[in-house]
Each structure stands twice: as C-alpha cells, then as structure tokens.
C-alpha cells in the first residue's frame, strides 16, 4: 500500500472523473443554450458558440487555478478582493445597465460581471483570513470577517443584484459555520438578526427595484396574475411540468421555442432542459451535480490544511447554493432572484468563475500529496 504513496500522481482517476463530470454538465448546458437560441440573433456569434468560447476561457482559468499553488494564490487574496471591489465601484458609476440594474463592465465586444468574480475573491479572502491565525472570540471570528464581506455585499446589492448578494451571504455563513461558531455567538447573531430585521427589511425592500418586489410578491402566489408578475414562475413551472417523464426532445420544448419562457438561456435554462429532457434527464443532471458536489466535499474533507479545507468548503457552498436556489426558483420553491445555474446557464463571467473555482478545488486535492514531490 505504501508504495503507491511514493508515486507522484499528477493526474489520477479521481481527476478524470472530476473533469468528466464538469464536461458532461457543460455539454448539457451548451445543448440547452443552443436549443433556446438557435433561431435567434445572438449578436457576433450564435450563443452556443459564444458559450463554447467562454468555456475555453474557463478551461484556461481552470488549468491556471489547478496548477498555481493555492498557498501562493491565497497570499494574493486581499489585493484580488481589493481589485474586485474597485471593479464593483467602477460598475456602479460606469457600468452598462440592463433591465434596471448596472452589473456589467464593457470590454470590447464583451461584458463582464464583476459580481461573479467577487464571490471567488470573497472565498479566497475568508479562507486566507481564517487559516492565517487561530481566530478566537466572536470579534475575530464573526465581526472582522463580516466587515470584510460588507463592502462587497453592499456594492453588489446597490447594483442591484439580489442573487449574487444572497450567494455572497451564503458563502460567508457557510464558511463561518464550518470554522465553527460558539453557540453563544450564534445565538447573539440570531437575536441581532431578528431585532434588526424590520429595519433591514425596510431598507432592503425600499432599495429593491419594482420588478424585484414584484417577483417576490409573485412567489407568494404565482397563479394570481398569469399575465403579470407571476408570469416567469408560472411559465417556468409549465415548461418543467410539461416535460413529463421523458421530455419533449431536444428543440421540442414548446414553452421554450415559442418564447413563453423568458431568459431561457440564462437563469431559466434548467426549465428548458427539464422541458426537453423530462424527469429522466433532470434526474441525470441532478445526479451529475450531486456527484460533483460530493467529490468536492471529499476534497474538502481530505484537504491538507485549513486553508485548503476552507477554500474547498467555500467553493462547494457557492456551487451548491447556486444549484439549489436556481432549480428551486424554476420549480417555484424559491422566489425568482436571478441566480444562474453553474456550468449550464449562458454567461461568460459566471462560467469562467465557476470553472476557475473548480480548478482551485482540484488544486487543493492535488496539494494534499505535495509532501511527496
């Protein structure tokens, strides 16, 4: 047994499985994107081609993150986070607006969404912060990292981008819980949250755009007004439900093809997939995601050090949060908050960020054997 360990294994069956899973999910995503958009003018190039281009860029990021020792990467955490904050600030003043929100930075023919990069930067910063020294007491454990997160969160909410904001908070909370919070501190936090909720709610609700408020209201009763506020939720449910067990086949989704389903290639791509591939297809996709997350958690649990473990946990929590909330909103279990389905939804920034994060995960896994180089 021991002789295996003496071998330096740069690439093993785990990595193969891992990369295979990612490629499978990406492939299904590209098919669905093509199915929604094949009869549409996609600007410079068809959407699926553009997505393939994002994927190749993402593959580059994936490789870089895989190879680059995460310890040295972590040393760049603060500068990276500062850069992201600057980008977010830039977006606020100079960004390109779409649907009432300013989220994009135009760069040549393409636009980037810094809020996507911000999530990964936050993970790096938090992992770096907690692993640098034993953070004891609720000031060090909760308040300081909370203050670290706050500027990013506020800038994102200001855009406003409710979905990214929520995943920001989710990443923070999960990492905090994994580091461990004394039950007392947790209690204080909960108490404060409850006490502050009405004030925060007032502020949050007031800062929301009309369409966001409508979406939240629609979540409460989507069938109330099919033509209006609950439209997305209802059409999405109809698309998914009408796929039945075996689906309508690729390009066969009527909800999709007749444009009943808005944003079919981005936030609602899961509904498109579910309509065309049915419950069986959905089951396969879910299984792929669960396996990917499972393997990622495996990496977290076997990480060599706390930095690696926290990086892995942060990435897994970001990934799973997005998967769960995205699917949850398309099936009507959550309000529609605008979170893409990782690796499946069309979008450059999100695809590149997710793939980079997954590369970083493999990096963490790879370094656990680094002693034997």
């Amino acid at each position, binding site marked *: *047994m*021991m002789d*295996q*360990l003496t071998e330096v294994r740069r690439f093993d069956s785990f990595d193969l499985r891992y990369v295979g899973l990612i490629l499978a999910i990406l492939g299904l995503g590209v098919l669905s994107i093509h199915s929604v958009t094949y009869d549409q003018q996609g600007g410079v190039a068809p959407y699926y081609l553009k997505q393939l281009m994002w994927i190749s860029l993402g593959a580059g990021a994936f490789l870089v993150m895989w190879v680059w020792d995460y310890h040295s990467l972590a040393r760049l955490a603060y500068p990276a986070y500062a850069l992201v904050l600057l980008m977010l600030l830039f977006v606020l003043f100079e960004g390109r607006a779409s649907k009432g929100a300013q989220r994009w930075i135009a760069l040549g023919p393409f636009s980037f969404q810094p809020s996507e990069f911000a999530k990964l930067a936050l993970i790096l910063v938090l992992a770096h912060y907690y*692993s640098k*020294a*034993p953070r004891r007491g609720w000031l060090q454990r909760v308040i300081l990292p909370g203050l670290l997160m706050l500027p990013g969160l506020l800038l994102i909410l200001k855009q406003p981008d409710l979905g990214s904001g929520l995943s920001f908070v989710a990443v923070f909370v*999960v990492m905090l*819980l*994994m580091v*461990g919070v004394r039950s007392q501190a947790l209690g204080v936090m909960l108490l404060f949250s409850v006490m502050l909720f009405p004030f925060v709610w007032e502020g949050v609700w007031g800062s929301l755009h009309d369409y966001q408020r409508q979406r939240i209201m629609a979540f409460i009763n989507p069938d109330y007004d*099919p*033509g*209006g506020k609950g*439209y997305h939720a209802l*059409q999405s*449910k*109809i*698309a*998914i*439900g*009408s*796929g*039945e*067990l075996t689906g309508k086949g690729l390009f066969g989704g*009527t*909800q999709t093809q*007749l*444009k*009943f389903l*808005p944003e079919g290639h981005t936030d609602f791509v899961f509904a498109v997939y*579910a*309509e065309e591939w*049915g*419950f069986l297809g*959905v*089951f396969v996709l*879910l299984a792929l995601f*669960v396996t990917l*997350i*499972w393997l990622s*958690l495996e990496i*977290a*649990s*076997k990480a*060599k*050090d*706390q930095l690696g*473990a926290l990086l892995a*946990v942060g990435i*897994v*929590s970001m990934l*799973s949060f997005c998967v*769960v909330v995205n*699917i*949850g909103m398309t*099936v009507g*279990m959550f309000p529609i908050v605008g979170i893409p389905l990782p690796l499946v939804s069309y979008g450059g920034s999100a695809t590149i960020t997710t793939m980079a994060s997954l590369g970083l995960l493999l990096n963490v896994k790879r370094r*656990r054997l680094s*002693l034997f180089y």
Partner: protein
Amino acid sequence: MVGIEVQNVGDRMASGNYAENESDDFHRRLMVLRVGLLLVVALLSLRLWHLQVWDGAYYLDLSKNNRTRQVLLEPARGLIYDRNGVLLANNVPSFSLYVTLDEVKDREQLIGQLSDLLDLDPVLIRKKLTAKGGKSLPRKIKDRMTLHDAVLIESHRLELSGVMVQVESQRNYPGGGMAAHLLGYVGEISADQLERPEFSGLHQGSVVGQYGIEKFFDRHVRGQAGQKNVEVDAHGNEKREVVVEHPQAGNDLYLTIDVRLQKVAEDLLGSESGAIVALDPTNGDIWAMASRPGFDPNVLSRELTPKQWGEIVQDEGHPLTNRASQGQYPPGSTFKVPMAVAALESETMAQYSTVSCNGGYQFGNRIYRDWKAVGHGAVALHDALVHSCDVYFYTIGQRMGIDVMAEYGKEFGLGQDTGIELPSERSGIMPSTVWKQKAKNTAWLPGETISAAIGQGYVTVTPLQMASLIGTVANNGVSYRPRLVHAVMDRTTGNLQELLTVPRGKIKAKPETFRIVKDALADVVTKGTATRAKSSLVTIAGKTGTAQVAALQTGPEESIPKKFRDHAWFVAFAPVESPKIAVVVLSEHMGHGGAAAAPLAKELIETFIKLNLSAPAATPGDPTAKPARQASEPL
C-alpha cells in the same frame, strides 16, 4: 484509499495550526453539510417528480393551450333565394371585435379603454367578458363595427393586448323589410339557447336564426364552424397559423315565394295592419305571405341595446308578429264556406231547401240578427252564400250542432297547426263541447252554437289556415301542407335537393258538394257581396267576411274608435275553372270584407295572372314547373 486516508491524517498533524480536535469538528460539520445538502436535493427531486410525473399531464395541457390561441372560423350562412332565384338573404363582410381573456393584462383597464374608444357601455363589455366560457377562446364583444372603429382599434393595438378585430360575414337582407316575417332574422345565440341540445356544438358569439325561416331552418342554413389555431408567443405575437378545420358554409334555401307577388301583397296592405297569404292550392306552395306592420331584419340582426329592443317589443302595432301565421281572428262569414260543405255532407240541409230570413233568428228569448236588417226572404244554400245570409247559417248551425261543425272544421284544418315551416305558429280555436269543457270547465251553451255558425264567438283562425281552407275547397277537398321551402342546396356536395310536397289528405265529401259551393263562391264575386273583386282578366271565386271585434257596436262606422272596428276578410281562388292560386286578405279594423279586403285580393290575383302569362318560369297549365335557377341578383 486507506493509505491516503492515513497519510492525510499525518499531513494534518504535520501542519501545526490545524489542530486535530479542530479537524474533527470540521469533519463533523462537513457531515452536517452533506446531510443537509442531500436533504435539499431530495426535496428538489420530489418537487420535480411532482411537477413532471405526477402533474405532468396537466402542465402538458397548459403548455399546449399556451402555444396556441384557438380562433373559431365562423361559417357563412346559407343563402336564401325566392322561387325564381332572386336573392333574399346573403352575407356581407363586417368587422367584429374579439377579446381573449388569457392575453388581457388588466381587465378593468381594458373595459375602460374599449368603452372610451368605441363608445360602448362598460357594463355590457364586462358582462361579455365574465360570461361562462374558455379563457383562451376569443369572445365577441361587438359586431358590425364601422371601418372607422376597426381602424381605431387597430391603431391602438399595442395598448390593447388580447384584443383583435376579425373580418366576418354578416347576415344581410337586400330587400330590407321585404318578407321580413318569413325570412326572420339572426342574432347571437342566447345563454338559454346555448344550454339546449339543438344548439350543441355552438358557442358564445355564434349567430343563429332567431325568427322566421332563419330560425326554423337554422340547422340547414347555419353551417359548421371551423377552427384555426394561431401559435402565439408570450408577447401575443402571432407566429404561425394552422387551420385545423375549415368552416363549412350552410345550405342554400330556395323558397316557394315569388318576390314580385310578395312585393305587391305588401304594398297592398300599405300602412294598415293585416295579412295577405297567397298559395298554390295544388301543392301548398306559398306564393306570398305578407304581414303588416313589419320590420327591417337588417336592424334586428344587429346587436340591439335593451332600449331599442324595448321599443320594438312594446310597439302597439306588434311588428314582430307574423299576422299570417300567428294572428288569430274570428273568421266571420268566411266560416260559412266550411259550414256550407258541412251542411251538404252531413245532410243537415239539402241543396235547394230554403230557410226564411226576416232579418233575425230567435233562439230562446234572444234574437240573433242578420247583417241585413230587412232580411233576405226565402234563401237556399247558393243564395245564402252569395248574399251571406246569417239566418240561413244560424238555422243549419242550430240543426247540426257544434260538434258536427267542429268535425268539419277540423277536416279543413281549423283549430290545428297547418305545419308551415315557421316557428311559433298559432292554431286558432275550433270549439266543441269537449273543447269548452276542457278549456273553460263549463258546459257548452246552445246559444254559442248560433254565434259559431257565422264564425263568431269562440271560433278563431289564422289567415294562413283560411288560405289553406279555401285552397282545399278550390282543389276539391285535396289539401297539402303549406310550405315555404321547395329546395335545399347542399353546399358541400352541390346537390340541389327538391323537397317533396306533403299531402295532408282529402276531405271526405262528394265532388258534387264542392261544385255547388264553388258555384256559389263564384257568384259571390259576380253578383254577391264581393263584386268589387270582379276582374276582367280572370274568373275569381271568393267569400267575404266581417269579423266583429267588439260585441257592442251601433251607429255609423266612422264614429267607432278604430281599434273596435271590424276586421275585413276575403278568401278567394282563381281561376274558378282550374284554380291556381288561393288568396286570403285580412285587413284589421277596416270594416266590411267586401269593401276593404276583396279589392286587394283582386289586385293580387290579377298580378299573379299577368306574371304567369308572361313569365317563362311558370307556363300556363304548369305553373309549378321548376323555377329557373338564375344567377342571384340583388334586389
């Protein structure tokens, strides 16, 4: 794997700040995370199973309705022609406004917009939008829109989601009010009608016949609606049209009416209330059937406001009543025709037996007066008919009794429907002892027999019944059911189906009896009460009648308010030798039949003779020859 596990622990112990107990805590928390994640995924899967497998069929259905908007294609109603192929009812294009509820964003707002743009009553629009029916099916809000309104709606299309303007065929009657009671009119199907089986397959907004032939033959003329599915996207943009079923035009009807005669008949009545019926005694074909006052079916086929309806319904002239088939009047002396047949056949009175008339007939302590106060002296049947002697008929009526009268009356079709193809025909009353017991729950009084003998009292008839009756006499007792439609053209096959005449039987009477009665009726015109009907063109036989409206009327006619004046009757046929036409004229409140009704009948008969001498469609000797199927020409 085991080796790696061991090594990992070693790794962690080697890295100083990652203490073992903290690592254990971390693994415990990781476990919680895993369990939590699995739970959430399980929940999502359950939800997806529920959506896709459990309720999948339901959502599939929704998605199908989603993609298509079903638009009904209204069929063109069958055309209606007269016997010579003159067009009486056709269809013209018109604009209709539809609203599809599914695509409406704000119903109240839309109601406001539409009522502003088109000046419609918002209550009416709301009523139509809330009526029962599918949400994806367009509902008709307004028809016969003006071009201006249609353009107005089209130019506001973007603000009016769910609204569409459709070109449809609209019923049109080129002759305006001509033959209105016969043709009837069409209208949107009512909520009550929708429930009834004969209207199954129709839907809110369907147009059906509401009166006249349009109603009676609705099933033939209606046609069958088609359907097209319009694929629309979420914005209501039409993407593609698929015709699922082409609409099937209704069948064309060929009437027995000759519009030229119909026009003359209507003009003869003019502004007076009354009815004229002319039919062919040899087969029952109706040549003309006029009723006054009338209406314009073009107006009634449009959507009327409750106020407009109220005005029509409350009109004292009852313009919607077809007086020919629905007006019930005492026959007066025209009833003496069947009475004469009954007297001879029941052998109540022989042909030459006389009755002495001194101007009155005493029964009990009451005297029944003759219209001629000085009396007619000794009269036999012939003179009794020619001069319309009341006392003669009091006498025979009294002798035969009401039940024998009723028996012969029924032979001639009195007290029962003629079976004409018009809705809501009335049957009049041919009283009998049994009838009175049933209807009034009292016994028949002998004095009532005497009134009945001259067509007063309980006896009532419709002009159509009298036309059929005099036609039967003219045709020596052989009668046919009066009919209005002689052929139906199936639009799908192009086959013209001639309908058969319907014989109604033969009155069991000797030919001699009819000869005697017809001789007398001919003399009524040549030297009796109807000399004003004498024609130089053709021999005419007939019988006048004056139906009492109010029992008490004394003094000169001019002093009596018009609504209490007598109705004038004249029943006739011509030519006497071989009758081709039977005519009935009823003029309400116009006094004596000989003066007010007989000249009209003469005019009509002369027109008929002139037309059928010159028209190739009906050569003399064969007036019932197949009518020429000319190209339809609007009137």
